[in-house]
């Protein structure tokens, strides 16, 4: 058997500038390779979720609602059309969160893969951004499938409806970035998952004007919508898919809230990653 020589040549081989500029993309590449292994499951979730919701709530409950509100409709449209953009944004948020929170906890705790990434020229900030970018890939995939199902159900009324794809991904990105920062700080994830599922995701899903306009909520509950990326994205989505009325000011507010969440999430996450890896 020939014994391969393991040369020493990193001084000639490695281009530090390349890692500096593309490091985050290398991390994304690795993350996407992992995701591809679960593509079947991701596909099933992305299709089954909208189909189940649109049939049960959209058509089932929707039929009942449409009958009782008459031709005026909910916000001027069929209940299914009203509901669909909210579900689209929710799918993006859930998908992005799954791909930021779990890999982050895994990377720091379950497998410690971030530590081995950090022993290469990659910095904590690059790892953080790489994980985030890969999560957007999942969000894009999920939202695209979801959008296809919405189209098949006849839930899209405006020619600009496709613009709800980027706004939904935008909401996913904003929330995903924040949750990634939180996950990077976690020491005990068991407790976190209980809180996340029951006290964060559930109320956000229910109280963000998803199933009814936010204004039908008592005033003291409406703040949940205001801090929820889901509500802001849903409002934008409704505007784009069927022409729901939004004042220009409010339009800016929706964007501003999402941008603020996104930027602060990304900065916090990069800081947390750097700090935790240097411990």
């Amino acid at each position, binding site marked *: 058997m020939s014994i391969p020589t393991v040369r020493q040549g990193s*001084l000639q081989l490695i281009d530090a500038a390349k890692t500096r500029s593309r490091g985050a993309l290398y991390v994304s590449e690795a993350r996407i390779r992992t995701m591809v292994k679960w593509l079947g499951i991701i596909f099933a979730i992305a299709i089954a979720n909208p189909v189940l919701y649109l049939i049960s709530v959209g058509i089932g409950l929707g039929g009942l609602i449409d009958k009782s509100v008459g031709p005026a409709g909910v916000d001027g449209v069929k209940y299914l059309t009203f509901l669909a953009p909210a579900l689209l944004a929710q799918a993006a948020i859930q998908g992005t969160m799954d791909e930021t929170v779990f890999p982050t906890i895994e990377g720091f705790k379950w497998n410690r893969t971030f530590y*081995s990434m950090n*022993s290469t020229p990659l910095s904590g900030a690059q790892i953080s951004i790489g994980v985030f970018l890969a999560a957007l890939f999942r969000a894009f995939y999920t939202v695209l499938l979801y959008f296809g199902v919405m189209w098949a159900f006849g839930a899209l009324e405006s020619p600009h409806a496709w613009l709800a794809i980027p706004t939904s991904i935008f909401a996913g990105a904003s929330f995903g970035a924040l949750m990634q920062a939180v996950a990077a700080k976690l020491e005990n994830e068991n407790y976190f998952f209980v809180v996340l599922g029951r006290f964060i995701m559930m109320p956000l899903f229910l109280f963000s004007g998803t199933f009814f306009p936010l204004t039908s909520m008592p005033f003291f509950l409406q703040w949940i919508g205001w801090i929820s990326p889901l509500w802001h994205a849903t409002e934008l989505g409704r505007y784009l898919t069927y022409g729901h009325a939004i004042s220009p000011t409010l339009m800016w507010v929706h964007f501003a809230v999402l941008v603020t969440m996104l930027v602060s999430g990304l900065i916090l996450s990069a800081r947390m990653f750097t700090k935790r890896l*240097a411990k």
Partner: protein
Amino acid sequence: MSEYLISARGLTKKFGDFTAVNSIDFDVSKGESFGLLGPNGAGKSTVMRMIGATSQRNAGDLTILGKDPELNGPQIRAHLGVVPQQDSLDMHLSVSENLYIYGRYFGLPRKFVKGKIEELLTFAQLEEKRDAKVEALSGGMKRRLTIARALVSEPEILMLDEPTTGLDPQARHILWDRLFRLKEQGVTLVITTHFMDEAEQLCDRLIVMDKGSIMAEGSPASLIKDYSTKEVLEVRFGSDRNQEVADKLRAMCERIEELPDRVLMYTEDGEALLEKIYASGLHPKTSLVRRSSLEDVFLRLTGRTLIE
């Protein structure tokens, strides 16, 4: 650039009030195999993380490949191969994918990495497992993969943090063989271990650490020569009697160590000492003459055994 690849002066690391590494000095030359030996909690891994340019020192100077890790972390890490204590492999990916993505982290071209993978699979004796998921590998295979991974960038310095902890004897010997080949090829190795035999096998020179400080420094042979005798006689009288006979035994040789289960007697000639014991009318239940090892050096320096 100085003549040393790694140079530390007054290197100190604190975690809150706790001083993990207390002002230590050492140098590592090119092509040298340098060991950090000490019990759990001695500060070895902390030193490794500082050399690895991921954890910053609180005081002192540290130069790696002529650069300061505090200022040039990524540039230094580009030339290091790191084998951490825990394998931290990507469990979802296959053996060859693990090598591939790691090579990419260094910004190496795809084509180069793909060629390198073949070389490394052979080196790690994992050719048959190239498409296997990492989860399915044995402990020894995972360890070899982690070492192969660290070599993907052809590093100037290979750092191994307890490379064989948790492996069975056969897996350890395969690994030692691989590391020995790297050493022969002139790769600079920095190894931490709490196994004496491992340090003796692999290290040209080592520092013995305890509680964040360096207790001794030298080659395994010189440490044994300086801090121990040529041979050691281990005698057992039964745990209730060891204490009782200790005083008598002490008078017969240079030095003894009383351990709970046995008494270690330090001497230049073990057989002669054993005869002397019998002649004095003492009859140990078992006896063993062996060469002095680094374990004895450590016992002498700290009064404690390495693995308790």
